[in-house]
């Protein structure tokens, strides 16, 4: 029980289907430990985005059980879900910025939702935008920004609240390699602070950049490497950071 409570996420035989369609995720059983760094890989259509939706509580599974921060998210009362979501940081593949808000207001959004006072959020938001190289775009609205700029705003928004779990869907897909490395360093810094990071990516080169990361591979809705055996580069001497049971069906 204590072990489960200390886990960030625990999936137990989880399946997901949309409507009457076949399952897009099948028999997922794994645990994400606090302070770990995971890459989620897989071909297009493998179910990465669906798995991420389950992780950031945008979707409930069709079957199985999910525990997050020690709570059963299936049976958790609806009014307690927002508090759970506030412990998450999410970088959406399509950024999902609020179009009529400036870069500043988009990044400030999670803090305002959480009730942070205006005078307390001015500095962190400005600093965060400066760190992602957008000091000069602080008042720009998404429509006037490039894809890369929007992505950096989305990342700044996801990390501004120092989440317990950061879920990022192709977070470096629209930025140049130098910025991609910089953003990864940001994720690593968060990870060192105790944030569990899950990054979905197609970019195999990215996997080399975070030495202590674990790789989770999805293949046709099944987790094919939940044990971390495929982590890159392999370091068999280090203790495993993820454990799984029965996920590889």
């Amino acid at each position, binding site marked *: 029980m204590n072990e489960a409570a200390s886990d960030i996420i625990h999936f137990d035989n989880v399946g997901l289907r949309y409507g009457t369609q076949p399952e897009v995720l099948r028999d997922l059983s794994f645990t994400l430990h606090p302070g770990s760094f995971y890459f989620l890989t897989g071909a297009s259509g493998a179910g990465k985005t669906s798995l991420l939706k389950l992780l950031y509580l945008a979707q*409930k599974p069709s079957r199985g059980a999910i525990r997050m921060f020690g709570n059963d998210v299936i049976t958790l009362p609806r009014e307690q879900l927002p508090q759970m979501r506030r412990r998450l940081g999410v970088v959406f593949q399509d950024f999902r910025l609020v179009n009529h808000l400036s870069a500043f207001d988009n990044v400030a959004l999670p803090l305002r939702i959480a009730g942070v006072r205006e005078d307390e959020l001015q500095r962190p938001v400005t600093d965060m935008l400066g760190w992602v190289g957008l000091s000069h775009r602080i008042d720009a609205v998404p429509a006037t920004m490039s894809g890369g700029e929007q992505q950096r705003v989305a990342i700044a*928004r996801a990390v501004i609240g120092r989440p317990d779990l950061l879920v990022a869907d192709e977070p470096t897909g629209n930025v140049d390699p130098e910025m991609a490395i910089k953003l990864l360093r940001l994720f690593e810094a968060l990870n060192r602070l105790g944030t569990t990071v899950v990054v979905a990516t197609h970019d195999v080169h990215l996997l080399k950049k975070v030495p202590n990361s674990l790789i989770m591979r999805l293949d046709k809705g099944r987790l094919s490497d939940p044990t971390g055996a495929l982590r890159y580069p392999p370091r068999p001497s280090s203790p495993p950071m993820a454990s799984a049971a029965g996920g590889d069906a």
Partner: protein
Amino acid sequence: MKLPPLIGRSLHRGLAPLAGENAASLVPRTRLSGPVPWVLAIMITLTVLAVAGGLALSNLANSARSDLSGAVTVQIVEADQELLAQQTQVAVRILTDNPAVQSLRAVPQAELDALLEPWLGTGNAVDPVPMPALIDVQLRDVADAQQIEQLQSVLTNEIPNVRVDAQSDWLRPVYSALSSLQYLAAVLVILLAVTSAAAVWLAVRSSFAAHRETIKIVHLLGGKDDQIARIFQNSVAIDALIGGIMGLLAGLLGVMLIGSRFAGLDSGMVAGGGLGALDWIAIAAIPFAAIIIAMLTARLNVMAALRRMV
């Protein structure tokens, strides 16, 4: 590599949790611009007119009932004028001695003649047409059927051709019509309230659909249903306030115009249909009731839509 300042600082100061839920100003106001304030203004104008009309009718009916509640007419029909005069005196004596009677007045012949002048012409009333004698009686209590029966019985013992009528009986059809109009006004007010709520419901639904993506983002970032609902509620409240003030002013203008027309009639019965202080307070409260209905409608609508999200 230098860390982002917020994270760099937090390495030293620890992870203080963010708290609070005052996020009503997070999302740009989903302004229900366009027709809503105007629709509500029209609805509230009509509601003010209906309520004012209903209250005026109620006051009118109450005033008339109050004036006539104890009023009785005693009519003595006798062709022989001398006998008629004697019987009138007897009736006055009997009525004066009756403890149920508060006051009475034998209607003078001149007044009776004046009543008939429009039909018979001046000076033609007495000779060719035998006129009954009329006595206006004011009872201490309401002139109900039992009281009328008792008076009739007492008078008939002495005067065979006497007839006692409660004056309110003659106005019963008028009271009935006034009651119908009052019910009509009440039904109108209810229909207008329902229509206003429906207009707000549709507007909020449309606004919710237009801002659905923003709402989903706020939802996924941890926004509570209550926070999101409050954004719409406040927006609708502002629209309802604007519409309410416009509607109240227009309605009051209408009430005053109609009131001045009726006041010009200078009729005793219509004079009882004026509005009192409480009536004006009730009318002034209409916009506030509209705001509450609009906010409640918006809240229920948004909460129902949010419950469909995970």
